[in-house]
């Protein structure tokens, strides 16, 4: 609470105490009237001041003016206590709105408190502490344990664990060692690191992320714009209705002037759309803040809203649903060899190959190849490798290699890549290699279905068999395979036909070479955004880690946020309409109106604050 808020709160409480004391002494007694007027003045002097000030600046019919009119009106018809109550409780509501807004703003800036205060830069053999803005690209920075990494770079010395939770929502620390890239905003935990910077501060991950969250408010959701428009017509409409209620019955139907004036005042009390105007942006801001805590960057309320309306999701394959690393899936030896022999021959022959497939063979072997057992290595471009392993003549490569050397073999009909092995002129076996499906891909797809998403599709540049195998394994509905990058946009356009009205099409990719697709979709989601400028630039939503499960979390947050908004809209408008009906009928008193109005604001704001919190898997 700021000092200003504390002062205001004590003032409002004092006014309410006076008001209650006045009622206790008897509303109509001199003491009662004096106390009520004191309460009114104490609670409302600044409202009256603002009303006059704003009128002088040409701002009529704002909430200050209307509250002033409503409470003076009550005093005019000698309802002193009610006049004071209108002002006091209106002020209490205002106070709470200000307080809650401050709290939400603070919570979110705490959540994204990743801004480094300084950088230790190594200059002329000395460590100097400088503002991160002053560090240039290519300089060496020193990050001690407990300090925040101030700029992006490559580790040149040291080995340490870093806490990436503030950026990724990932609780397990990551190991950083020489040659690995370090992301600004992470906290170094165990040992001192030296990092060669690769960006300036204003281009670093930390600054981009902060900029994104802070400017997200500018991309407003449809509901937000609706509420802004609604607010514009609501106040004049209610004031107009109040005038009609005050004038028509007494003038045309001989109603009693004071009675109808009183009824009209109940309208003025509820004439501020504050509950909605504050709670709706607050929900979205809370949703965006909560998401960033989970390692999900959302560039605006509009994207959160569209994410909640998701009808169809299209996934990229490599790097999104699969790891993007090759993995040995199956080893099929011929009758005269064992699996262990086949993998050894293949790994040994490919020992010095730079192809990613060679890496997967080494990993599958699980031990070092004895270099002295390999010689005469001959690489045949686009076919494979010929080498002597343990004095055997070994061929490892595509089917073409064996065919060209006149070796008969059983051709496999597997998806992915098949590596054939021949030993001493005889076919010895084959190894199936494919990209590995991400650990949580299957469960993420299942969870998306439980969220009611009907159509889940894969768009892939890969071979049909490979794509279909992955799609089948994790349970997607359809596959568009063998797409060139430009075909992906076409594929997405076709998918739009199958999106039900009012629903959105979400595309999830790695953000590296699918920028046009990310842009074309209603919501473009880039995965593994941490450290990837391209992804942060191109996408509407960035999942900082590369788990498909984060998409589920993002949609859950989006649905919760928009749900809160609609609850608030229905509740606030419903209560206000009810007060108008009851007020016009002479059933609702000014007491009821002010309690209803402030109560709705309280509830709407408390409801909005829920968007910030929540346990999402």
């Amino acid at each position, binding site marked *: 609470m700021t000092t200003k808020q504390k002062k205001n709160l004590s003032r409002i409480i004092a006014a309410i105490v006076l008001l209650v004391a006045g009622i206790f002494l008897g509303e109509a007694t001199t003491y009662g009237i004096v106390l009520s007027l004191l309460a009114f003045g104490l609670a409302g002097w600044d409202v009256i001041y603002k009303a006059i*000030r*704003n009128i002088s*600046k*040409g*701002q009529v019919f*704002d*909430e200050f003016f209307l509250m002033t009119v409503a409470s003076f009106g009550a005093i005019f018809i000698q309802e002193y206590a009610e006049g004071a109550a209108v002002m006091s409780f209106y002020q209490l509501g205002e106070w709470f709105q*200000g307080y809650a*807004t401050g709290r*939400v*703003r603070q919570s979110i800036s705490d959540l994204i408190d990743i801004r480094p205060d300084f950088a230790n830069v190594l200059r002329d053999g000395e460590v100097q502490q400088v503002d991160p803005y002053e560090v240039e690209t290519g300089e060496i920075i020193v990050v001690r344990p407990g300090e925040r990494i101030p700029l992006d770079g490559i580790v040149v010395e040291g080995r340490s664990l870093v806490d990436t939770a503030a950026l990724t929502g990932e609780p397990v620390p990551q190991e950083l060692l020489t040659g690995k890239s370090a992301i600004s905003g992470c906290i170094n935990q165990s040992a001192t690191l030296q990092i060669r910077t690769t960006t300036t501060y204003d281009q670093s991950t930390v600054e981009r992320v902060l*900029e994104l969250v*802070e*400017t*997200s*408010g*500018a*991309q*407003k959701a449809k509901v937000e714009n609706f509420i*802004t428009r609604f*607010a*514009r017509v609501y106040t004049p409409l209610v004031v107009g209705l109040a005038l009609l209620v005050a004038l028509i019955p007494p003038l045309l139907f001989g109603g009693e002037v004071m009675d109808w004036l009183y009824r009209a005042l109940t309208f003025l009390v509820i004439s*501020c*759309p*504050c509950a909605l*105007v*504050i709670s709706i*942006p*607050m929900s*979205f*801001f809370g949703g965006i803040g909560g998401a960033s805590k989970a390692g999900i960057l959302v560039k605006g309320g509009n994207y959160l809203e569209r994410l909640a309306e998701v009808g169809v999701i299209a996934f990229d394959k490599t790097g999104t649903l699969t790891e993007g690393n090759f993995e040995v899936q199956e080893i099929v030896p011929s009758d005269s060899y064992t699996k262990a022999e086949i993998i050894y021959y293949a790994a040994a022959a490919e020992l010095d190959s730079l192809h990613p497939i060679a890496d997967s063979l080494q990993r599958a072997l699980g031990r070092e190849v004895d270099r002295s057992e390999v010689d005469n290595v001959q690489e045949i471009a686009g076919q494979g490798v010929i080498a002597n392993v343990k004095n055997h003549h070994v061929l490892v490569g595509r089917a073409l290699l064996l065919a060209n050397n006149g070796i008969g073999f059983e051709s496999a009909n597997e998806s992915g890549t098949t590596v054939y092995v021949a030993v001493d002129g005889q076919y010895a076996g084959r190894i199936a290699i494919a990209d590995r499906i991400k650990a949580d891909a299957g469960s993420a797809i299942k969870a998306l279905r439980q969220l009611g998403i009907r159509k889940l599709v894969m768009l892939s540049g890969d071979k049909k068999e490979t794509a279909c195998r992955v799609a089948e394994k994790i349970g997607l509905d359809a596959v568009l395979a063998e797409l060139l990058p430009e075909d992906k946009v076409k594929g997405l356009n076709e998918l739009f036909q199958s999106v039900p009205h009012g629903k959105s099409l979400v595309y999830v990719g790695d953000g590296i070479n699918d920028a046009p697709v990310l842009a074309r979709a209603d919501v473009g989601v880039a995965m593994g955004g941490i450290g990837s400028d391209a992804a942060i630039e191109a996408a509407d939503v960035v999942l900082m880690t590369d788990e498909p499960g984060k998409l589920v979390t993002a949609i859950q947050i989006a649905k919760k946020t928009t749900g809160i908004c609609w609850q608030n809209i229905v509740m606030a408008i419903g209560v206000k309409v009810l007060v108008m009906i009851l007020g016009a009928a002479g059933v609702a008193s000014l007491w009821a109106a002010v309690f209803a109005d402030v109560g709705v604001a309280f509830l709407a704001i408390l409801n909005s604050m829920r968007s910030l919190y929540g346990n999402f898997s």
Partner: protein
Amino acid sequence: MKKNIRLEGLDCAVCAGKMEEAISKLAGVNSCKISYMTQRMILDVVEESYADVMTASEKIIHDLEPDVLINVK
């Protein structure tokens, strides 16, 4: 050009809506978005009109909320 402007002390959500509407209508303004929660104004403005737009915006903002500090990044 796009400007990211901090509106420190922006405390009235209804006023923020009115400011946004009025500033959007100024000559030279392509778009104006004011976020009450983040206390930011993202102003997309024709470069030549920037100075005029800022003078006019300042008056609009201060007429509605005199205590707002306008802080251009």
